[in-house]
């Protein structure tokens, strides 16, 4: 590796409000290098990717392009500098065609400046041939499966003749064959002198594809080292920084009666024939890749979405379809995936948010009693060790972890017998994360049935009594705690199981 790196970050820091997402992180990407970025969820990987992509600007530190300082004022600057990014979540235009999606912002033109449709179609077809997939370039992006959407994203990135290719979990939704094709394309690009930054939860991929690995933990740099000579366990230890057991304090509980029973639940085109049960005192994890249909199952159970066939029973009583209020009355609580959009009313205070689920019980005569609302909020805030200045503060000022506690308080105040939590610790700091885990464990100990959807494998393995795995809308495996390993869960999640 002679000469300056193609792209480098020097002591870059970035904060979002009170959360320090990146602290003094440095990274060097050399031409012809495949470089892995490892770390747990919330370690700062995605923030780093967005800085490279020009979406975020660092608060301090420098970015160097071919050794020269450079500032990206937006995604266009990054594109011009030759940085192509494949994001974790596809960012497509549903109303436009696949070919338009690939070339938006830099469409091939005729001499008169018009869009050259024929050239565009040919270029797109050529890209798909390189990737070894058969997608129709003129098909609208709406209705593509997650895997196909991901392939369009990949085609978009490699179409730019990038000097730096950043891939944030590009294989999360791909089958084995598709992933292998992607890797051979990436390998070719790398040999031609492209610098590749690769992020994946599949450690095998890191080991087979990459030369060096940078590990982040809690926004800080842990290590930069060659992959050769490193073992899986060593890498995991660098990512986690402590023994798994200490982080996930799941109490041993004896499972009681069945609290939630789901039978052959189907929503056309979203999930099919999903059957499982959760007993009191159990934590059951629902694992799978993004887009496998996990959150959709949770939403259907809680009555947010309609289901087409099947039944849901809570404590032996069937629930009507599409009625959240009936679900709540039966003792179900859903802590949704996106707390800012779905879990909280950001403009309201802590006490108002906690009070929302029990407006009827807070009523004195015809009006809501402010005192009762405050008592209830204070009670739950203390129990969950919420850090706040005043209960009348807006929830917007709280940190992510404390916001999540408010959502939990809001639902625990309904005294549920079944608690469904969707990505309960996404984007919250490690300290609060451990508290949320302790809390879930305590709740199970008190006899609540907990269904936990999580993409965080260590969390799934550490917390769950049983792991259910979904792949493309179907339940593909049920793995007891003793047999659940990263490999067994990922195998089922990617549909590679027999």
């Amino acid at each position, binding site marked *: 590796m002679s000469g300056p790196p193609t792209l480098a970050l020097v002591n870059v820091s970035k904060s979002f409000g009170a959360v320090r997402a990146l602290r003094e992180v440095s990274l060097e990407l050399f031409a012809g290098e495949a470089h892995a970025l490892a770390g747990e969820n919330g370690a700062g990987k995605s923030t780093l990717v967005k800085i490279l*992509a020009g*979406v975020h600007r660092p608060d301090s530190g420098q970015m160097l392009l071919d050794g020269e300082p450079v500032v990206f004022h*937006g*995604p*266009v600057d990054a*594109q011009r500098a030759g940085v192509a*990014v494949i*994001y974790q979540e596809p*960012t*497509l*235009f*549903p*109303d*436009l065609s696949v070919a*338009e999606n690939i070339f*938006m*912002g*830099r*469409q091939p*033109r005729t001499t008169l*400046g*018009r*869009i050259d449709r024929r050239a565009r179609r040919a270029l797109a077809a050529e890209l798909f041939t390189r990737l070894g*997939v*058969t*997608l*129709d370039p*003129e*098909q*609208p992006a*709406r*209705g*593509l*499966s997650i*895997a*196909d959407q991901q392939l369009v994203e990949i085609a978009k990135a490699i179409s730019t003749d990038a000097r730096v290719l950043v891939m944030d979990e590009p294989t999360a939704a791909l*089958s*084995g*064959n*598709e992933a292998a094709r992607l890797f051979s394309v990436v390998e070719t690009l790398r040999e031609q002198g492209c610098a590749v930054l690769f992020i994946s939860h599949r450690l095998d991929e890191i080991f087979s594809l990459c030369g060096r690995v940078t590990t982040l933990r809690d926004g800080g740099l842990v290590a930069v080292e060659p992959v050769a000579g490193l073992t899986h366990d060593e890498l995991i230890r660098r990512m986690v920084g402590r023994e798994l057991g200490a982080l996930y304090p799941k109490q041993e509980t004896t499972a009681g009666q069945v609290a939630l029973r789901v039978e052959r639940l189907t929503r*056309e*085109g*979203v999930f099919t024939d999903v059957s499982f049960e959760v007993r009191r005192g159990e934590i059951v994890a629902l694992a799978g890749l993004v887009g496998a249909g996990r959150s959709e199952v949770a939403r259907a159970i809680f009555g947010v979405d309609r289901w087409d066939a099947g039944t849901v029973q809570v404590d032996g009583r069937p629930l009507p379809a599409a009625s959240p209020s009936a679900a709540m009355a039966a003792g179900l609580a859903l802590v949704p995936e996106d707390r800012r959009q779905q879990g909280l009313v950001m403009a309201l205070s802590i006490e108002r948010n906690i009070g929302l689920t029990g407006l009827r019980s807070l009523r004195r005569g015809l009006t809501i009693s402010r005192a009762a609302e405050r008592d209830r909020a204070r009670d739950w805030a203390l129990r969950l060790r919420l850090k706040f200045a005043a209960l009348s503060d807006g929830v917007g000022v709280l940190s992510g972890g404390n916001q999540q506690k408010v959502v939990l308080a809001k639902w625990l105040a309904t005294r549920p017998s079944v608690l469904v939590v969707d990505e309960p610790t996404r984007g919250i700091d490690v300290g609060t994360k451990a508290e949320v885990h302790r809390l879930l464990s305590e709740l199970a100990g008190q006899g609540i049935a907990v269904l936990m959807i999580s993409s965080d494998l260590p969390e799934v393995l550490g917390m769950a009594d049983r792991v259910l795995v979904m*792949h*493309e*809308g179907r339940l593909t495996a049920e793995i007891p705690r003793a047999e659940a390993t990263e490999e067994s869960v990922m195998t089922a999640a990617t*549909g590679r199981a027999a």
Partner: protein
Amino acid sequence: MTATAARPEPAARGRGARTLVDLVFRARELSLVIALAALVGGTAAANPTFLSGQGVEDILLNTAILALLAVGQSMVVVTRNLDLSVGSVVGLVAFTLGDLLTSGWGLVPGVVAGVALGAACGLLNGLLVSFGRVPALVVTLGTLYVFQGVCHFVAAGRQINAADLPPALLSLGNGAVLGVPYLPLITVVIMLVIGYYLRAYPSGREFYAIGSSPEAARLAGVPVRRRVLAGYLVSGCLAGLAGVLWLARFGTVVADSAGGWELLVISAVVVGGVAITGGVGSVYGAALGALLLTVIGSALVVLRVNPFWQQAITGALLLLAISVDRVLALRVARLLRRRSRHG
């Protein structure tokens, strides 16, 4: 599951999905044409004067201004925005231009000034929405009242009389070339130019990209704010031009003479198949929507239906259009989902 089982016959699948979606969009413009034909046929059968030369000419003249505004509005709506101020702009430009012309301005400088005034109004809207990051609904509702107020201030209770206007302007409003009146000609030319631009040019397609997913557009390096601003600028220019044509057509105008038209324009756009959530639709559809609404208005007059019904029917048509869109969208989404999952 092996990879082959997961994606069988992808080429055929893609083609199938495409024809399906094509069909839905063509179905929209086709169903507008069918509705128009049925309406015209039915009305003409009941009262043959409906299709007399004068009747048709009236419809074309009445449609021209509404369709022009609908074309401008589509450019804004496609980016997932809204321009409520167009009615006020038309009124303001019509009156101001009338004032200028009666005080001795030449026709050409006057018309240029009118369009420029519309452009300035559009620029203000666009700057507030794109750079001020204020929701379009609030901005243009605000400017609706501001422009209206300015117009009343300028007018101070007066009215512009056709007799004081240069004859050249009035002949623009009511004259014809080879039997085709100027007004619809102007509208059709502008519609074709904008329609072609939106379809064939990279920057034109970016309007659709922005409306389809603003976030993805930003990541793709589309200059979102510049395009949104441009959309408002075009809508303002066309509203200005519509003001000029308004004065040419009616000659005698009072202050805020096109008050309330903004809602009619938006109805035409939505009935014409431009999604109010952005990303979908064409200026041709919007113009057809304008034509349909105008024909309904004329038909009701010919059929001696109480004119109060006209608004109710416009509203019902709007609801019908939106319901049909929604149902079709759900159907298509479901079908596409099924195809991509199970082949």
